[in-house]
């Protein structure tokens, strides 16, 4: 209120001649510009903390990019992690820092940003179907990673045996559901008639699979087509071309 009192031009409007009226409008414009700056400063400040890799940080980053919302991408080094870990709520990353307060868990972060920027479906029921597909992907990933992590060189075990025992069954349980949903929905996106954060989630996973195990989704052309469609969205395409990792 001090701010408004000190800068109020309204007395000028009443005690006026033409010159004063012009002064009023100049003052009024100055207030509008100051107010815009103030609003910019009270928009939330987002910092996404993760390692300097794609991993679990990539989908939140892509949602920011798609929503065209500014965020600071903080890459935590392996050396700095043990200290920073103590500050995080769950001892894990990614964490989203919103005006100094943390939100952990990648899906909670994704949904928090997506639902505030029109990327979580147009109705509550659509939002619920976005959640359901995302959780079904998570179930897939929990089985699939028993093969995938070995393939990427983490842990001990027979990669080929893991592919047969875990990789292929997990794939053949999950991706038919994706195809069924794409056909049923009919828009080219998974839920409703516009892109949602689960399109981003699935397309990211598909691109990663195709990059590291070419032809793995040969029996699911609709899924590959979906990935290409999602990654052709201009804001996301730009991110993919300029992302740091």
């Amino acid at each position, binding site marked *: 209120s001090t701010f408004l009192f000190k800068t109020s031009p309204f007395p000028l409007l009443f005690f006026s001649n033409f010159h004063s009226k012009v002064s009023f409008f100049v003052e009024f414009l100055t207030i509008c510009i100051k107010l815009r700056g103030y609003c910019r400063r009270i928009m939330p400040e987002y910092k996404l903390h993760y390692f300097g890799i794609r991993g679990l940080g990539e989908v939140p980053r892509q949602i920011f990019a798609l929503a065209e919302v500014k965020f600071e991408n903080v890459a935590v080094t392996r050396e700095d992690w043990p200290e920073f870990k103590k500050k995080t709520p769950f001892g894990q990353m990614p964490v989203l820092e919103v005006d100094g307060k943390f939100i*952990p868990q990648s899906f909670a972060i994704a949904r*928090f940003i997506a639902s505030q920027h029109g990327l979580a479906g147009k109705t509550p029921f659509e939002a619920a179907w976005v959640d359901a597909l995302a959780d079904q992907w998570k179930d897939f990933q929990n089985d699939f990673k028993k093969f995938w992590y070995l393939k990427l060189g983490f842990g001990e075990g027979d990669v080929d045996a893991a592919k047969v025992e875990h990789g292929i069954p997990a794939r053949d349980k999950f991706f038919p559901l994706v195809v069924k949903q794409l056909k049923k929905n009919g828009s080219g996106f998974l839920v409703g008639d516009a892109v949602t954060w689960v399109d981003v989630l699935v397309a990211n996973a598909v691109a990663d699979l195709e990059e590291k195990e070419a032809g793995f989704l040969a029996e699911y052309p609709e899924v590959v087509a979906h990935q290409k469609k999602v990654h052709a969205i201009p804001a996301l395409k730009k991110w993919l071309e300029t992302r740091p990792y």
Partner: protein
Amino acid sequence: STMPAYKLTYFNGRLRAEVARQLLYLAGVPFEDVRVRRPDWPALKSKMPFGEMPVLEVDGKPLPQSFAINRYLAKEFGFTGKSPFEAAWVDAIADQFKDYNIETRRLFLVLLGMIQGDKEQLLKDVGIPARDKFFGILEKIAKENGSNGHFVGQSLTWADLLIADHVKTVNILLPGFLDGFPTVLDTVKKIESTPKLKEWIEKSPYSKF
């Protein structure tokens, strides 16, 4: 406008459907509470969107996946906290609980007699570390939230219901297992004393899990 018709389909147990049942009951909303007997399940499986239960039907339209169902009902009836930030924290606690569940799955299947396994080995290798990590987090969260009987904010959320229902199971299968987390246990007691919830718990069929 008229209330939609709700139908929830699951096995005759608490596990992945109890929170949804509680949300509907707390909201005072009538719903069809379908409990499928194990022998009848194979015939129904292909009718479910993802071949699994629970499934919520809203005016006949199906919705699978327990957390999607919980969050949908919680949003409809006001159990997701008071802001997007609080709602995100409810989601985060639920997902951390899911991670803990995945880690301890084999242990609980052995405790329920559903698979063979070495209970003591699983407790030592998996159960205790997972418990200490997850319930350590919850203990801290409950204290930082003011030990007010909620894990997030000042009012009942579906994260409260989720944790309380799991603690009930742990108290049945592993008595004393959570004695090192007194604020969590006190929070659960407060949650369970919510009048309508107390009513539901008392009239529900008993289930070990």
